[in-house]
């Protein structure tokens, strides 16, 4: 028993009306009193029709207050007949929109993702007819993969997927071939820079240092020889890593006080009338021993006559010593010294891990000197050729 329709019936002997409707097969979900001569009836469509017919027969006032369910939906659709075509048109537009590629994304994966060349991939896609707005059905993913693998550069994997309106191209650049050492080529590994050895890993040759040793740049770290017997050795190419703790310094300095020129308040003015290259002095004055001069040009002849008055104001100045804000200066110098140390690290082009970093400052006369020290751990083993 649903309550699709709510009726309001007004009149007398409404109990009899309800009873009569029940006898004729009606069922009511809810009957409420809305006043001494009115009731509200919730009923399904069939029962409401029975009740309305009885009201009509007995001259009772019966009004539909609310209509719900399928009947209401049908009524609403009849009233807004443009809704269905509108929805259909909207669905058609959505289908048209979603059936095309509107976004082409290129992403690189794998350990050498940084080596990927997105521009080359996109150029290759364009050559193969892939463009924003093309129908997704025309994208042949397998063919595109093959073309990209063949043309777009050195990639170990290329995947093309169509995800809705997005064409995703995933490429994994080839891992560069590792440096190949000729084991038969004898050579030693030496220290690239000063440091304290933390660990020694020898893959070929003999270690010449051990953890805790202090080494200088150029000192032998791994000797390129292998034992054949107890007495006899053979030269080999030394391989291995020697991790050491190294220090990089950056420095910066600045003046604690500086001398600036400040105006004393005394001023003199001179002026002259000028026309092209000619000048007629109007007012003259002497210069100060130390001064600042401000010049003003005042046009008097209008746009077509370049006549102007040149007015020069001389302001007397005196040197004044100005103390710098020491904390601000120190903070600025620390950041400069750190940048200097990082620049040195970048210039050496080493892979490093920061172990510790500190700064110190000292005052010498009128100068504040700041030193930033980066303590890093890095592999310092290089061949003699690389050192030179």
């Amino acid at each position, binding site marked *: *028993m649903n309550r699709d329709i709510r009726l309001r019936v007004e009149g007398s002997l*409404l*109990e*009899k009306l*309800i*009873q009569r409707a*029940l*006898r004729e*097969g009606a*069922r*009511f*979900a*809810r*009957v*409420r*009193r809305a006043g*001494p001569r009115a*009731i509200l009836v919730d009923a399904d469509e069939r029962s409401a029709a029975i009740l309305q017919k009885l009201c009509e027969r007995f001259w009772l006032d019966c009004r539909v207050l609310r209509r719900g369910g399928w009947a209401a939906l049908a009524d609403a659709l009849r009233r807004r007949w443009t809704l269905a075509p509108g929805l259909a048109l909207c669905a058609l537009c959505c289908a048209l929109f979603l059936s095309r590629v509107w976004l082409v994304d290129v992403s690189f994966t794998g350990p050498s993702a940084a080596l990927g060349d997105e521009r080359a991939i996109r150029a290759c896609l364009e050559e193969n007819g892939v463009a924003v707005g093309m129908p997704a059905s025309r994208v042949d993913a397998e063919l595109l993969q093959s073309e990209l693998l063949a043309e777009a550069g050195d990639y170990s994997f290329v995947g093309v997927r169509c995800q809705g309106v997005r064409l995703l191209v995933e490429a994994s650049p080839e891992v560069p071939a590792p440096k190949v050492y000729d084991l038969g080529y004898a050579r030693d590994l030496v220290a690239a820079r000063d440091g304290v050895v933390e660990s020694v890993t020898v893959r070929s040759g003999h270690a010449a240092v051990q953890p805790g040793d202090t080494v200088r740049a150029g000192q032998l770290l791994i000797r390129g020889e292998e034992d054949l017997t107890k007495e006899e050795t053979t030269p080999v190419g030394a391989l291995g890593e020697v991790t050491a703790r190294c220090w990089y310094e950056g420095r910066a300095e600045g003046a604690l006080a500086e001398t600036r020129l400040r105006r004393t308040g005394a001023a003199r003015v001179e002026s002259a009338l000028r026309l092209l290259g000619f000048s007629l002095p109007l007012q003259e004055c002497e210069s100060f021993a130390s001064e600042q001069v401000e010049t003003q040009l005042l046009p008097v002849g209008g746009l077509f006559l370049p006549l102007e008055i040149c007015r020069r104001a001389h302001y007397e100045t005196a040197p004044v010593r100005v103390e710098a804000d020491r904390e601000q200066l120190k903070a600025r110098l620390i950041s400069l010294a750190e940048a200097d140390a990082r620049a040195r690290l970048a210039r050496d082009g080493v892979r490093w891990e920061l172990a510790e970093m500190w700064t110190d400052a000292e005052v010498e006369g009128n100068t504040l000197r700041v030193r930033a020290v980066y303590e890093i751990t890095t592999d310092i083993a290089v061949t003699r050729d690389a050192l030179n």
Partner: protein
Amino acid sequence: MSAPALEWLCDLSERTPRVTSIGNRSLLVENYHGIREFTAERIALDTRCGCVEVCGSGLTLSQVRRDALVIEGSIRDVKLPCAEAEHES
């Protein structure tokens, strides 16, 4: 077979009114003949035995069918004429 065992059969055949109360918010009345009076404070139903009166406030009829209905609202008092008749006799 004893008489109490056949009472349910008697109910079926004679269409005796049955009133079932669920707390004081809902009352199921079965086997009624007609609605004599229906206001928010009083509902009177005709049955074979007489008139069943329900008094309270905010009374409404729900699930109204030809032979059964549910009275909802704050029910204060239910008068059953058959019981009264038995008591009087």
